[in-house]
């Protein structure tokens, strides 16, 4: 009560001011407070950098057939007998370096995860805003569809869409098309959570007096939703987006593991785990273990960030 809002306001126009406000904000402060969150942030940032800079930092290009040799297949990590310093984490069945493949695989995983989350958020936020602001029949229809979808596991929906897409596009959708298919499948199976959350927040916001004030002024309903309601419901969306990024990466890995994901020529972490799985019992554990660990660390870090963001944006917990 009396204790908040006690600081001297800072006014600086423009970008410098925005940056200053950002660094001074409670959210950033709570980020600095938690060592675990900072570590998670650092790990996530590392993955992003690695994914972005893959061609420059990876020891090899696992996609370049000229570079790989079957002679190098099944090499163990460098610290074991028979290891090779060129492949710090060993090689897979085709002689691709595990480390390089992980770096490129993280790229594929993050790309799919991000794109899928963006797509899901775009669909979910739009439908949630429409349902929440218009209410009535529109609301009922959208939310019933959402509930039906929610009763199927996301992976099943992704499999379904993936199967239909492959059927329509004919045979084995290759390369970039396969990426698009998997992004759409995951995106379409993840929108419900956004829609429900946004609808809830929208119902709260639309009864607030600033929205009513805009209605009295005569602002067009569409503009009210976009300019007034949307910015005020984005907090929870950000939280869901972070947490579902981790989920999307796992779903991608699962689909790839099941063989319906990204093509094996452009491995993602999931494809690698699947490939490695075949050799797990023949002693080549590194092919599956390192990508698995890389995936687990990434998902854990992103999840921790999501948890922190949820708490930081929740005024009740501050």
């Amino acid at each position, binding site marked *: *009560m*009396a*204790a908040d*809002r*006690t*600081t*001297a306001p800072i006014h600086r126009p423009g970008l410098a001011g925005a940056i200053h406000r950002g660094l001074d904000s409670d959210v950033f*402060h709570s980020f600095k407070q938690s060592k675990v969150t900072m570590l998670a942030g650092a790990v996530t940032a590392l993955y992003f950098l690695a994914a972005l800079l893959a061609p420059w930092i990876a020891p090899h290009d696992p996609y370049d057939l000229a570079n790989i040799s079957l002679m190098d297949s099944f090499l163990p990590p460098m610290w074991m007998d028979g290891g090779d310093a060129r492949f710090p984490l060993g090689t897979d069945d085709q002689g691709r370096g595990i480390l390089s493949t992980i770096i490129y695989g993280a790229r594929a995983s993050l790309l799919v995860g991000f794109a899928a989350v963006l797509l899901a958020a775009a669909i979910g936020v739009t439908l949630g805003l429409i349902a929440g602001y218009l209410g009535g029949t529109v609301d009922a229809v959208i939310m019933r569809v959402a509930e039906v979808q929610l009763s199927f596991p996301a992976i099943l929906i992704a499999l379904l869409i993936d199967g239909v897409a492959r059927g329509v596009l004919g045979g084995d959708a290759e390369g970039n098309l396969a990426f698009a298919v998997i992004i759409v499948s995951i995106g379409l199976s993840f929108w419900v959570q956004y829609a429900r959350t946004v609808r809830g927040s929208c119902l709260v916001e639309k009864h607030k007096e600033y929205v009513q004030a805009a209605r009295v002024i005569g602002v067009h309903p569409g503009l009210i939703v976009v300019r007034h309601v949307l910015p005020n419901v984005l907090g929870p969306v950000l939280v869901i987006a972070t947490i579902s990024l981790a989920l999307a990466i796992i779903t991608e890995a699962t689909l790839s593991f099941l063989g319906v994901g990204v093509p094996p020529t452009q491995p993602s972490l999931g494809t690698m785990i699947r490939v490695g799985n075949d050799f797990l019992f023949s002693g080549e554990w590194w092919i599956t273990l390192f990508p698995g660990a890389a995936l687990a660390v990434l998902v854990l870090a992103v999840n921790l960030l999501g948890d922190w963001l949820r708490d930081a944006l929740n005024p009740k917990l501050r």
Partner: protein
Amino acid sequence: MARPVLQVDNLTVEFPTRRGTLRAVDDISFRIDAGEVLGVVGESGAGKSMTGTAVIGLLEPPGRISGGRVQLEGARIDHLPHDQMRRLRGQRIGMIFQDPLTSLNPLYTIGFHLTETIRTHTDRGEAEARARAIELLTEVGIPAPAQRIDQYPHHFSGGMRQRVVIALALCAEPRLVIADEPTTALDVSIQAQIIQLLKRLCREHGTSVLLITHDMGVIAETADRVAVMYAGRIVEVGPVREVVQNAKHPYTEGLMDAIPKIGGRTEDLAQIRGTMPRLSQIPAGCAFHPRCPRAFDRCRQERPELLDAGASRAACWLHAGEPAGAGTGRGGGERG
């Protein structure tokens, strides 16, 4: 002089924040005698609610009592361990909060709330406690208490719920009741009922009351003495009639003049210029001096203690060294 029920000396409450420590309650002292109603009045941010929560040990961390003493019937209670404090609340200090809806658990019946509290604080058995609960409900004016005792809070209207909360606060016959804005959430016509009920019950039971409110009308109707708070400090304390009609501190005076009154002139209201300072920017000297029409040099430099001013005491340099009884402004000297 008889031992006061509650004595607060130099109480200070602080909130450490990352931008420095804020002082929400700043060195305040007051006492409440047996059977007395002390009103604490002030605007939002004045520290009046914080005073109440500090007295009953319910300050939300990181807020803490950083100085001073709180004594209940002569025994210090500000350093009691949590479990002892919890027993004290309810048994020797009753509490009434602003929102009657959140003071009652919606999952339990009214009867459960009452019998549970009675059995916690007395050695009555189940049947006895229930009989006592019905008695209490009758006393606070709930019609058909024998039937309504088994209903849930949502069956009760706001005013009726506040009556139940009052019954709960009085269950264990406490010596002191702390009522924080007990009528603010209620409709005008219900407010009057609740004030009268609170007054009557405390008189009948000989209970002292610490009544915290922003509403001067409620104070004028209920309190025996009033403490006026501003920016965490008590600026004036005195008999209610004296403070309401013959204010000695310029802030109290301004506050009283700012209240619209029926039958008064309908031209512009008197207004205090400016706004209450933020806790992080409390001015040096008298906290009110930037807004005070009669501030002089000393007010800007030196913080005034409570000084005798007629029948009241006011923290204002206008009363320094002045013969007792001389008022500062309107109708000075008239005392009740």
